[in-house]
């Protein structure tokens, strides 16, 4: 049996590794997406004052600390049985909307962009953000950095620090914002809406305007029929900060919605012997293996999942894009994984519009940004939508508020089973007997999971840096016959 090893994966946070096995005749046999075990974070958090945990959890990973801080803050509110005032909730969501704009922008221009603007088979040296901005224009590069700067500014104004916010405390926030700050936030948000619209137009022109890319998106190799989950508001519209988690089946029918404290009724975890990371699945459906379909409990939690699990977007411009998305792709739900990139940009527009809705609410500058907790702390669950999937924090404490148990289901972990399935299907479709296994081909295998925007740094509870890519191809006896390298 031959073995192809993609280790580790480029442009992906963490130390992922794909092992592709070929049979003696050179046909695809199987593949495994492996994640090394880097656990210990939950244990590290035990024995600490619970309000310290949202600060610690935003150190799990350098990619989405804002998401961990928010899920942690909501879990701590629940532990203390306290409901923050409306202003506090709005300020947190405002921070979170700005963070989403930064994160989704970075993913599109730095991770998805190279595949779609430069092309999946472009030379490695050009398949990066530098190549993208040279192709689409330097001024667009400037706008990308401007978007990031504005996002960071809002996070710093409300969260106290850039990137790693620290102002959420039980029952609300340590501070509010002034009218002067509000005006600045509003100005930046209006610019963000224009930037999001521009980015959607760019996607429309560059990707949807190219038949080759459209065929790639709609092709079978990147398609799976699974369940989808995502948080929705009381009107079943997408919401990143609060609401219930909606679950829909592969036909788009809603199985139900669960509140944060009901997550254990809905989500269970499957263990495989070849990886330490667990595979969450829908408990009510059951684990049937890495298979598509209504009888399989495999679900996906991504921007596309959020759109599939909701009835629409809560803001007008994003709603119009949502309608265009489904009418273009042939109705709801959409199962093509590469469409996640498009869904992500619709969410970018929603986040920018929501930024303005919140920044222009008369109560956003109110001094009523905290409810002092009075109840004895016990146990609580907080859920937010991290950019890369539903993020669940569950804390249990003693009566002094000292943590006795901490459990996290991070965004990417939700998608571990579908990523495994997508990687396998792409490899199976692309690697054929007698075919040449090139870097471009292997990049197309990588594209199968890059769409999920995975961040195994926090899925495995570590903060790694980028690692070089090395693909080792072995013959039936395990002897190395070729090595492909990039960034080495």
């Amino acid at each position, binding site marked *: 049996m031959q073995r192809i090893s993609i280790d580790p*994966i*480029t*442009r*992906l*946070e*963490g130390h992922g590794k794909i092992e592709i096995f070929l049979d003696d005749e050179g046909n695809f046999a199987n593949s495994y997406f492996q994640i*090394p075990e*880097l656990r*210990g*974070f939950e*244990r*590290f958090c035990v024995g600490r004052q619970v309000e310290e945990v949202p600060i*610690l959890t935003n*150190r799990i990973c*350098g*990619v989405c*600390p804002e998401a961990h801080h928010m899920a942690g803050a909501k879990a701590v509110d629940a532990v203390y049985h306290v409901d923050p005032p409306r202003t506090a909730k709005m300020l947190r969501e405002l921070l979170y909307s700005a963070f989403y704009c930064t994160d989704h922008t*970075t*993913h599109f221009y*730095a*991770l998805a962009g190279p595949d779609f603007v430069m092309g999946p088979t472009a030379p490695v040296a050009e398949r*990066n*953000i*530098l190549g993208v*901005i*040279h192709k689409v224009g*330097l001024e667009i*590069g*400037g706008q990308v*950095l401007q978007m*990031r*700067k504005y996002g*960071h500014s809002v996070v710093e104004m409300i969260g106290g620090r850039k*990137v*790693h916010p620290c102002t959420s405390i039980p029952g609300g926030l340590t501070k509010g914002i002034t009218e002067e700050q509000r005006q600045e936030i509003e100005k930046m948000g209006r610019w963000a809406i224009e930037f999001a619209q521009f980015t959607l137009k760019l996607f429309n022109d560059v990707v949807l305007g190219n038949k080759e890319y459209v065929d790639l998106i709609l092709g079978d190799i990147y398609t799976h029929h699974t369940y989808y989950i995502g948080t929705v508001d009381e009107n079943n519209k997408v919401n990143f900060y609060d609401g219930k988690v909606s679950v829909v089946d592969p036909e788009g029918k809603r199985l139900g919605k669960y509140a944060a404290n009901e997550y254990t009724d809905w989500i269970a975890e499957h263990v495989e012997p070849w990886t330490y990371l667990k595979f969450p699945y829908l408990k009510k459906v059951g684990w049937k293996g890495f298979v598509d379909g209504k009888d399989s409990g495999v679900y996906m939690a991504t921007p596309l999942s959020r759109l599939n699990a909701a009835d629409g977007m809560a803001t007008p411009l994003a709603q119009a894009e949502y309608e265009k998305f489904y009418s273009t792709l042939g109705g709801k739900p959409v199962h093509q994984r590469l469409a996640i990139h498009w869904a992500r940009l619709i969410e970018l527009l929603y986040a920018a519009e929501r930024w303005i809705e919140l920044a222009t609410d008369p109560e956003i500058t109110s001094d009523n940004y905290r409810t002092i907790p009075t109840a004895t702390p016990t146990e609580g669950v907080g859920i937010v939508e991290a950019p890369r999937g539903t993020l669940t924090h569950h804390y249990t404490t003693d009566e002094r508020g000292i943590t006795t148990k901490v459990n996290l289901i991070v965004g990417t972990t939700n998608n571990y089973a579908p990523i495994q399935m997508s990687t396998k299907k792409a490899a199976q479709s692309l690697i054929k007997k007698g075919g040449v296994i090139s870097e471009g081909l292997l990049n197309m295998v990588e594209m199968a999971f890059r769409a999920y925007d995975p*961040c195994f*740094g926090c899925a495995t*509870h*570590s*903060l*790694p*840096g*980028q*690692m*070089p890519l090395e693909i080792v191809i072995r013959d039936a006896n395990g002897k190395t016959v070729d090595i492909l390298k990039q*960034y*080495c």
Partner: protein
Amino acid sequence: MKTLVVGLGNPILGDDGVGWQIAHELQQIKQLPSDVTIECLAIGGISLMEALINYDRAIIIDAIVTHQAPIGSIHHYKLEDLPNPSSGHMSSAHDTSLLTALHVGQSLGAHLPKDISVVTVESQKVIEFSELLTPAVAAAVPVATRIILDLLIESNPEKAPKADNMKN
């Protein structure tokens, strides 16, 4: 020369926090030149490039695992001379490497340091959550602090003893 010193890494991930600890040591030194700023960061790629904007010089302190040097070994490189420029935390796989990000920034006309040094400490435990450094890495903290201090005042070498490029 406006200089930024960055302690890079994750302060709760064992030896990965060594950059922060060295930066904290430097922050305690009173005779630092007034144009020197010291920061602790847990970012990479574009975010790290953004942090360097408007500085003339930067020194990045990071944990590194090469398995090719004794634990606690200190190395000093120019960024462009790093054996693997995408090593350590200078890259964020979620966006791009620092080198590519610097090229992006330069293309867009950002004022970025022309001189970027990287001081690395060979580390051991970087995948287990802990606030403690392993003893050999902890022992490197004062040595690395002195090396960086030398780099900061290298235009006035009589003010501090010269340190070697590499020490075990």
